[in-house]
């Protein structure tokens, strides 16, 4: 009998239970309840977010597949398409950093290759607590090692990402992993279970008692007790996944199957209900045939297991032998466990008895949708009020301090552990604004970036959301790429808190407006709620993944100054906007004020200008301004240059010097150009009505910044380099 305790263990409400009973016309048994609990969990059903997500624009002429499949697909011309998606693995990474992060990589890779695409790049967005704490260091160490172990051994380069540090992530680190795949348009596959009578095959690892209730775990808040809630962590087997990847791509390439879906979160349950639900069919399987790693597993355990490296395939009868042969070549079994049925139920038998018989539609599509109450946090007003401290005297040392702030400092410690070159397509290595990949045999290339500033979102979620999109697109503009599509991972606190729901709603509005302005469709994403530990929510943290296209890679520029004597030009205007800046946070310990504003039209004009200038071959380097403002951007342009070239910048303006240097005003890009190309650049800028200003020249071995002819910063590039390069390794060497 299902009592309230059982219901609450399954994270289901009494109303939800009533609805289940009504939908199936009787009381569910415990196994069936498990199925509903999983598929109606926040993680799988999006019940709190669906209503808001519908605000995001999802269509466009290049969109082949928007939200609703394992990943989105965008046409890139020449008969090819890119497939991409981002996923979070926050909770598992807190419990077991190495395996949690590793299996996160495994999961997103499967989302991509189930669509017939070969994964060509991974990116990761990571948020940790401050590195002064040994626990945070251990988490970061484990997460990076986990991503590295999985991505490296499967042979997909991890080409970029971001790492932020803030106290709010101390007990709730964020691990978001993005994957990009490339596919011939005629070879795309979907999660379909068509053709009643077609066999259903199970492939990959055996099923064990792994991560039972992982999805429901991702849908509940963490407290002390989670320390004990621990069997939910899986161990990844990248080698098995590599076999699975090759075998799956081979059967798809040969056109031998009808549909395929991975078994990640929600495992066998998810695949055996979602595939038929999308095809207007049902599935009938026999659990005795499911390969099992342990003895005595119950139907409940088999259906809810989250063992990794498994796939469900539907194939025509006539092809089964050939499919099995290909899997055998890769040392894998493909085991028929059931068939597609015309009756639209999931029917599961075990030892001769029917243990599940429920309509797939009820499980997949009829979960209640909530419009949870939203309320603006009362504390926001005071957080937005900022009284600026007076500027420090020694601004050089402030620049140095910012360069060494872990959020800004060099992340080589991280990406050196990732194989970022395998597949030999990475033409712009990690560290730049966006990662750039070539497509062998073509002139064009792909650019990818992840971005999102959570501090802005905590101070003004709508603006923060818009800036996340703007900044990600600006990163692409800096390498000359046109953004084609967006995926997003929305990391938030407990949606049952009205304040969190308000943040969520506002962030989505910001994202939606920016995506509309830039005309980029959202092709999918992921929502991770319940990022709370002991009642404390993280900052609202949207992470945007944007994919862009570069027509001609020969024109590519990077962020670093390339030679002496080039003219340094700033696109966009600078306003005194220190609210929410890294400068206030790292130097004055203030997380206050309003984040910088954003005028999306102006932003777009600046980006267009940068792209056009690159296309015409006018730029020697381009780098966008973000955390740390102009001073940090200029410092990075020196640091990224291979020759350690410095620069001298001059400003004549009455603004307070720290605002000049560290204001995070949006819509700005710092470029270098050869003197002879300056007139043409100015012409282009004028056509676009975009302010550009000559601010100095590259050269020397120092970063020198003057305001009204008074020197306010002077730092040897070598000194900067030391501070920037060593900050993170030093934190780990204690």
């Amino acid at each position: 009998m299902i009592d309230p305790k059982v219901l609450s263990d399954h994270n289901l409400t009494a109303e939800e239970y009533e609805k289940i009973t009504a939908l199936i016309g009787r009381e569910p048994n415990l196994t069936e309840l498990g199925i509903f609990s999983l598929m109606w969990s926040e993680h799988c059903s999006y019940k709190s977010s669906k209503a808001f997500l519908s605000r995001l624009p999802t269509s466009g002429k290049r969109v082949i597949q928007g939200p609703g499949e394992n990943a989105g697909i965008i046409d890139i011309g020449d008969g090819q398409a890119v497939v991409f998606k981002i996923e979070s693995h926050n909770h598992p990474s807190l419990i077991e950093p190495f395996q949690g992060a590793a299996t996160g990589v495994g999961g997103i890779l499967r989302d991509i290759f189930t669509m017939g695409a070969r994964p060509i790049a991974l990116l990761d967005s990571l948020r940790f607590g401050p590195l002064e704490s040994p626990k945070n260091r251990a988490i970061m160490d484990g997460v990076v090692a986990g991503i590295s172990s999985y991505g490296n051994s499967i042979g997909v380069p991890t080409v970029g990402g971001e790492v932020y540090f803030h106290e709010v992530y101390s007990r709730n680190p964020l691990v978001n992993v993005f994957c990009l795949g490339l596919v011939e348009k005629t070879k795309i596959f979907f999660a379909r279970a068509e053709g009643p009578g077609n066999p259903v095959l199970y492939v990959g690892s055996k099923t064990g008692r792994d991560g039972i209730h992982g999805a429901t775990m991702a849908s509940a808040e963490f407290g002390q007790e989670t320390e004990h809630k621990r069997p939910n962590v899986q161990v990844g087997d990248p080698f098995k996944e590599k076999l699975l990847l090759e075998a799956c791509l081979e059967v798809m390439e040969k056109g031998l199957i009808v549909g395929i879906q991975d078994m990640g979160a929600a495992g066998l349950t998810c695949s055996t209900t979602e595939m038929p639900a999308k095809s207007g069919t049902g599935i009938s399987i026999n659990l005795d045939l499911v390969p099992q790693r342990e003895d005595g597993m119950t139907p409940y355990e088999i259906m809810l297991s989250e063992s990794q490296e498994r796939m469900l395939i539907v194939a025509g009868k006539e092809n089964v032998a050939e499919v099995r042969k290909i899997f055998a070549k890769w040392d894998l079994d493909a085991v028929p466990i059931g068939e597609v049925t015309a009756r639209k139920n999931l029917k599961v038998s075990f030892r001769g008895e029917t243990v599940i018989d429920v309509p797939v539609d009820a499980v997949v599509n009829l979960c209640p949708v909530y419009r949870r109450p939203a309320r603006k946090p009362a504390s926001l007003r005071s957080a937005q009020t900022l009284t600026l401290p007076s500027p420090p005297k020694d601004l050089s040392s402030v620049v140095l301090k910012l360069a060494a702030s872990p959020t800004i400092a060099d992340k080589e410690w991280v990406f050196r552990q990732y194989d970022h070159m395998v597949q030999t397509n990475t033409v712009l290595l990690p560290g730049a604004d966006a990662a750039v990949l070539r497509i062998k045999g073509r002139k064009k290339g792909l650019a990818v970036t992840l971005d999102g500033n959570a501090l802005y979102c905590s101070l003004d979620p709508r603006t923060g959301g818009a800036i996340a999109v703007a900044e990600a697109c600006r990163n692409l503009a800096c390498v000359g790429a046109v953004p084609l599509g967006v995926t997003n991972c929305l990391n938030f606190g407990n949606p049952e808190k009205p304040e969190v729901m308000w943040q969520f709603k506002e962030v989505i509005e910001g994202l939606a407006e920016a995506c509309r302005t830039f005309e980029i469709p959202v092709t999918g994403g992921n929502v991770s709620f319940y990022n709370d530990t002991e009642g404390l929510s993280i900052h609202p943290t949207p992470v945007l993944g944007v994919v862009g296209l570069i027509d001609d890679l020969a024109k590519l520029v990077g962020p670093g100054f390339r030679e002496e004597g080039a003219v340094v030009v700033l696109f966009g205007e600078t306003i005194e906007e220190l609210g929410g800046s890294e400068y206030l946070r790292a130097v004055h310990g203030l997380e206050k004020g309003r984040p910088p504003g954003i005028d999306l039209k102006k932003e777009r004009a600046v980006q267009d200008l940068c792209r056009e200038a690159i296309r015409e071959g006018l730029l020697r380097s381009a780098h966008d301004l973000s955390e740390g403002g102009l001073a940090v951007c200029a410092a990075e342009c020196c640091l990224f240059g291979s020759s350690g070239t410095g620069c001298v910048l001059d400003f004549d303006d009455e603004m307070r010097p720290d605002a000049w240097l560290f204001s995070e005003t949006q819509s700005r890009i710092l470029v270098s150009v050869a003197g002879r190309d300056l007139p043409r650049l100015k012409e282009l800028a004028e056509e676009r009505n975009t302010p550009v200003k000559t601010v100095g020249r590259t050269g020397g071995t120092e970063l020198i910044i003057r305001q009204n002819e008074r020197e306010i910063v002077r730092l040897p590039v070598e000194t900067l380099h030391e501070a920037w390069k060593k900050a993170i390794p030093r934190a780990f060497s204690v």
Partner: protein
Amino acid sequence: MRVRILVSFKESVLDPQGQTVKNALLTLGYSSVKDVRQGKVFEIEFDGISDEDARRIVPEIANKVLANPIIEKFAWEILGEAKQV
């Protein structure tokens, strides 16, 4: 005092390392191999601690540093001279 600590995945946890070794052994014709589990072994030399100290310190170290109790278990013993590898 010399102590040996064995750390391995809990029974219910997938052990991909053990599985690959098992497959390799079967391929090489060792058909009597039924199962392989792979783990880590630590041999720690302590200076001037009593058996009682060891009974307190070793499990603490194992839980805190050597093993992740979520997925791993451990066992330990004090080594006599003869037992060292």
